C-alpha cells in the first residue's frame, strides 16, 4: 500500500466526523443568532423572520419527501392547512392547549400521509403526485365550503398564541423565540433521522430503488414513511403558522402554494439539510422585504428556479458546494 493512500485512510474518518458535527453546530449557532436577531427590528421584521422559520419547517418536510426519498408531493400546503386549521379549531373552539394541538396536527397529517401514500405507491411512483394533487384540491374545497367548521372564506380569527411555563408569548419577539426553539427541535430531529439507518435507506431508494430492494430494503414502506413524516412536518408548520398570523383562511393552503413550496425545495437544494432555509428565504422572506408585488415576484422566482434546474438541479446549496470545491481545489493546487 502506498503512503498517500495510507494518509488518506487515516485522514478521512475525522474529516467525516467533523462535517457531521459542523451541521449540528451550524443548527445550534443559527438558532442562537435567530434568538437575538430581531432585537430592534420592530414587529413586522420579527414577524417576517418567524414566518421564514415556519415556512422552512414545511419545506423541510417536503425536502424529506422529494430530496431524500425522491417523491413528488403536491399537497404540502394542504398538509400545512390541515395542521393550521386543526390547531386553530382545537384551540379556539375546544380550548385545547396549543401543545396538544401541535401534537395532534402532526399525528393527523402523518396518518393522512399514510392513507394517501399507501394506494398511490402501490402502483407507480408518479401516482403520488396525482393523488396528492387531487387531495390538495379536496382539502381546499372542504376548507372553503364547510363554514360551520372552518369559517369558509372568512376563515378563523383570534387564534391565541401559546404560553410557555406561565410565560405569555403574545408579543412578536417572545413568540419569535418560541418559533426558534420549535424549529431547532424539529431540525435536530430531522438531522438525526437522516443520519439513522432510515436516512441511509431513504438515500438508497432515491439513488437506486431496484438495487435497494435486492438488499432487503422495503422500498414501499420506506417511501411511504418518508412521505408521511414529510407530511407531518407540514402539519407541524401549520400548527405554528396559525398562532403566528392569528387569522387563517383557505388561500395560503391552495394548490399553487404547494407548487411554490416544491420550488422552494428545489431552489434551496433538494437533499441538503440547509436547503429548505435557503429556499424559504428566497421564496418567502425576500419578496416581503423587497416589497415586491406578489405575482411579479412569483414569476421572477419561478424563472430563477427554472434557470437553476437547467444549470444546477441541486439548487443554491449545490451551487455553493460546487463553488466551495473549486476554491478548495485552487488552494490545494497553490499549496
Amino acid at each position, binding site marked *: *500500500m502506498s503512503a498517500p*493512500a*495510507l494518509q*488518506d*485512510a487515516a485522514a*478521512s*474518518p475525522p474529516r*467525516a466526523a467533523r462535517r457531521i458535527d459542523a451541521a449540528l453546530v451550524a443548527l445550534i449557532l443559527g438558532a442562537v443568532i435567530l434568538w437575538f436577531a430581531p432585537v430592534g427590528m420592530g414587529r413586522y421584521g420579527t414577524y417576517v423572520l418567524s414566518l421564514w422559520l415556519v415556512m422552512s419547517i414545511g419545506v423541510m418536510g417536503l425536502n424529506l419527501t422529494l430530496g431524500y426519498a425522491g417523491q413528488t408531493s403536491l399537497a404540502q400546503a394542504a398538509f400545512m392547512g390541515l395542521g393550521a386549521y386543526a390547531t386553530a379549531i382545537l384551540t379556539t373552539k375546544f380550548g385545547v392547549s396549543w401543545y396538544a394541538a401541535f401534537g395532534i396536527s402532526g399525528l393527523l397529517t402523518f396518518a393522512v400521509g399514510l392513507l394517501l401514500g399507501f394506494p398511490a405507491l402501490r402502483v407507480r411512483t408518479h401516482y403520488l403526485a396525482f393523488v396528492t394533487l387531487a387531495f390538495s384540491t379536496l382539502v381546499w374545497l372542504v376548507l372553503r365550503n364547510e363554514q360551520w367548521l372552518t369559517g369558509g372564506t372568512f376563515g378563523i380569527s383570534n387564534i391565541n398564541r401559546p404560553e410557555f411555563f406561565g410565560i405569555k408569548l403574545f408579543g412578536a419577539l417572545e413568540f419569535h423565540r418560541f418559533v426558534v426553539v420549535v424549529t431547532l427541535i424539529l431540525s435536530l430531529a430531522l438531522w438525526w*433521522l437522516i*443520519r*439513522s*439507518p*432510515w436516512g*441511509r*435507506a431513504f*438515500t*438508497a431508494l432515491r*439513488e*437506486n430503488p*431496484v*438495487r*435497494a*430492494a*435486492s*438488499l*432487503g*430494503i*422495503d*422500498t414501499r*414502506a420506506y417511501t411511504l414513511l418518508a412521505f408521511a413524516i414529510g407530511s407531518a412536518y407540514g402539519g407541524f408548520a401549520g400548527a405554528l403558522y396559525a398562532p403566528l398570523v392569528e387569522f387563517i383562511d383557505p388561500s395560503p393552503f391552495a394548490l399553487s402554494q404547494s407548487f411554490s413550496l416544491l420550488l422552494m425545495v428545489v431552489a434551496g437544494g433538494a437533499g441538503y439539510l440547509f436547503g429548505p432555509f435557503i429556499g424559504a428565504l428566497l421564496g418567502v422572506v425576500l419578496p416581503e422585504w423587497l416589497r415586491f408585488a406578489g405575482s411579479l415576484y412569483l414569476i421572477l422566482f419561478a424563472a430563477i428556479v427554472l434557470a437553476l434546474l437547467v444549470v444546477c438541479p441541486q439548487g443554491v446549496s449545490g451551487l455553493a458546494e460546487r463553488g466551495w470545491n473549486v476554491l478548495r481545489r485552487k488552494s490545494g493546487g497553490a499549496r
Partner: protein
Amino acid sequence: MSSVLEVHDLHKAFGGIKAVNGVSFSVNEGEILGIIGPNGCGKSTLFNCILGQLEPTQGAVKLDGRDVTNMRPSALNRLGVSRTFQLLQVFPELSVRENLILAGQEHQGSMLGRLFGARDAGLSEKAEQMIGFFKLGHLTDAKAGGLSYGQQKLLDAAMAFMAGPRLVLLDEPAGGVNLTMLGDLKERLRAINAEQGATFVVIEHNMDFVMSLCTRVIVLAEGRMLAEGTPAEVRANPAVIEAYLGH
C-alpha cells in the same frame, strides 16, 4: 443432499417473445451452479423471474421447499437470497462502509429498532471484516462512485455477502474485471462457499471462470435448457459445442 432452490417449468413471455420457455432445475446446498448460454438466451430474465423482479408467465420457484414465486425482492432478500446485477449497482454517493452497512441493516432488528438504534445498526465491525476480506481496506471512507470499475465490482459482490446469505445469484460477476482481480474474486467466492456453506448460482460469459469455479453447469439456449452436467461433461457435449459455434 437437500435442495435450496427449485425452479419448476418457468416461463416468461414479453408480448409474443418467449424469453424463458420452460426451465426446471434445482440447486443443492453448498453447490456452485453455473448458468451459461449465448447472448439473449434468457439468463438474466430467468434470474429476474426467480428473484421477483419480473412476474413469470407460468411456473414456480421454491426456496427450501417453500413457494416464493412472485415474492417481492426485498422480502426474498430477507429470507437469505442475495444477488448482484449484470451492470454495476453500488450507491455512488455513499462511502464504501456505508454501502456495506446499508446492505446489512435490513437484516438487523425491527423497523423501529433501526430508527432508534445505533447509527451503524451494529454493523461497523462486520463491514470492516468484509472490507478486509475483499481487500478494499484503504478505501473504507471513500465515496463508492470514486472507485475504479474493478473495485466497485468487488464492493458490489461484498454487498451481496454482507448479510450472510444462504443463496447468492451472481449475474456476470467477471464482466469487465481484469485478470488479477478475477483471480481474487474467484478465490473470495470459493472461500465464502467453503467457510460459510453459501450456495451460488452464477451467470457468466467467461468460460474459464465458470468452468474452474462451478461444480455443475446448466446451458441455456433460446429460453430452454440445452444441457446439464459437470463442467467436463458440458464441455464435451456436442449440442453445446454446436450452439456455441453456431452463434
